């Protein structure tokens, strides 16, 4: 099982969520985060002066998948979240030791 954390542009969330549910993903977690990569920040104006804001709002989408769904999930996220412009985001993949469903106590792939 793999844990996929994708940091994407906020307005892409609905599209990515829709596409993932269509290919069979049944759950995900979403966090609002701020960050920067090579996009750096942007400048904002207030009362005639500019000031730099380094951290840009992003959405962190977390989804845990069994190995058979892994490739299609990655492909889907990349395809729907991409705009081609700087700031599209990154995906981090970690190998997961175990998953447990609290209500029933099931473990492993059955708990996904």
């Amino acid at each position, binding site marked *: 099982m793999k844990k996929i954390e994708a940091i994407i*542009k906020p*307005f892409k969330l*609905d599209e990515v969520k829709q596409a993932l549910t269509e290919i069979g993903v049944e759950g995900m977690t979403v966090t609002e985060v*701020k960050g920067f990569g090579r996009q750096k920040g*942007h*400048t*904002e*104006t*207030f009362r005639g002066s*500019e000031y730099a804001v*380094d*951290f840009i709002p992003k959405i962190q989408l977390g989804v845990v998948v069994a190995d058979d769904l892994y490739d299609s999930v990655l492909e889907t996220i990349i395809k729907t979240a991409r705009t081609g412009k700087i700031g599209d985001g990154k995906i981090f993949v970690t190998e997961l030791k175990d998953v447990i469903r609290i209500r029933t106590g099931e473990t492993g792939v059955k708990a996904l």
Partner: protein
Amino acid sequence: MKKFTLANFVQKMRDPKQRKFFFAIFGGKMIGLGMCFLIMFAFSLYLASPAKSHAQTTNTTDTSTNAAGAITNATTAITNAVAAATGTNAAPAAPAPPPDPPYVSPINTMWVLVTAFLVFFMQAGFMFLEAGFARERETINVLLEGIVDTCLCGVLFYCWGFAWMFGHGNGWIGWGDGNGHSWYFLQNLPDTYEATGVATLAIFLFQFAFADTCSTITSGAMLGRTGFWGDLWYSIGVSGFLYPIFGHWAWGPDGWLNGLKPAAFHDFAGSTVVHTIGGMIALAGAIVLGPRLGRKFKRDGGGPMPYHNMTVASVGAIILWFGWYGFNPGSTLSAMDIQGIARVAVNTTLAACTGGLGALLFVYPRSKKWDCGATVNGLLAGLVAITCPCYWVSPFGAMMLGFVAGVVVILATDLLEYLRIDDPCGAWPVHGACGVWGTWSLGLFATGQFGASTTTGADNSAGAVVKGLFYGGGFDQFKAQVIGNASIGIGVFIAAMILMYAVKATGTLRISKEGEEEGLDLHEHGGVAYPDTKL
């Protein structure tokens, strides 16, 4: 680049080429400044010119020069100051002769002024309501649009809006006192407006607040995807042209709807003039703009886009209700018609009450939830509907027509959703649809007991009273209401479609796709509504 210090500057000036360049730029700036002063000076001369500040005769509608005299003195002072600054000397305008004493009622004037302040406060209500119903990413845009359209409206109404709407002229547009003196830039104003006994400038302020309300309504349907330049252009179109011209038909002293027979068209505080006009322009804007990106409609499996702050939206609605206590009662223009004022205030209140309850109860069965947004629109619908008939209906009638408005607004919202028109605040359902219903309802619910406000009290004589269908008045008043509302409503909708398409042709109406995805606040205003100060 080297730092700008005196030493560096002097050194630079030793070079002849740099010297020439400096004097060219400096000379150009001085010429520019001089031209600015010249324009100000010339304009002040126009404002103070003797031909415009003397009335030839006094007559029954009182074209005395008292107000013009005061304006003349003020502009003379400016003229002399500018003359001194520019080194020339213009002869001051001759002082105006003392006028015949006109009837100026202090208490009526105070009443109109205080209610004007209340109506103006509705701008805060609108800003809250629209910002609350918008998404966070366009909040600053909504707020600034509200402020700027207020500022534009004041200037435009001063320049020609008031003259067009409330001046004498013909049945379609006005321009002055009917005796050759125009009221543009508030020139040649009589001491009091018509037979009201109220200082004309107080009437101007009161009507500016109304015009401001109308122009704010349109932004409610167009928020989230309108470029700010587009906002400016259509605001100028609405406040400067659509509202004063179409409003003159009903509220101008010689507006053609006043002459309808056998019953004249009546609109006490503006269900047609303010709300139907505003709502129809809003609808035209929403249609020409198209929906916000990502908006899916109910019939396609989607629904309205979520609001971002229900607290602010609900409080905004209550602020609007409070401001309505100036909007409707103030339209008596007379503090002496005490029964009328009290009746109007009570009718206003009861229509809002039943409007809110009507919407709340009508929507409940759909999802078994008590819908705050629907209730907010319901109370506003009741207020809009009562705005036309408030003087002439009984409290019971007010409650009935308010309740119907609460239902109408929900149905109108459903209709827009079905037609795939994205109206984020429900501007057309609240102001357009219920403005129409409120105007028609006068023809049904007018009791036949009440006539008109005058400067000394109420005129409830047989010739002045308004009677509707349910009280034995027949269809005459109802027909007049439908004719008046339809002519203004349909006319302004067509004109607004033309206006919106014209603005669209300039390319400024809708912002770019990237701008809309980034969010209007960042794209147009360089900021976010709720900055995170911790990071």
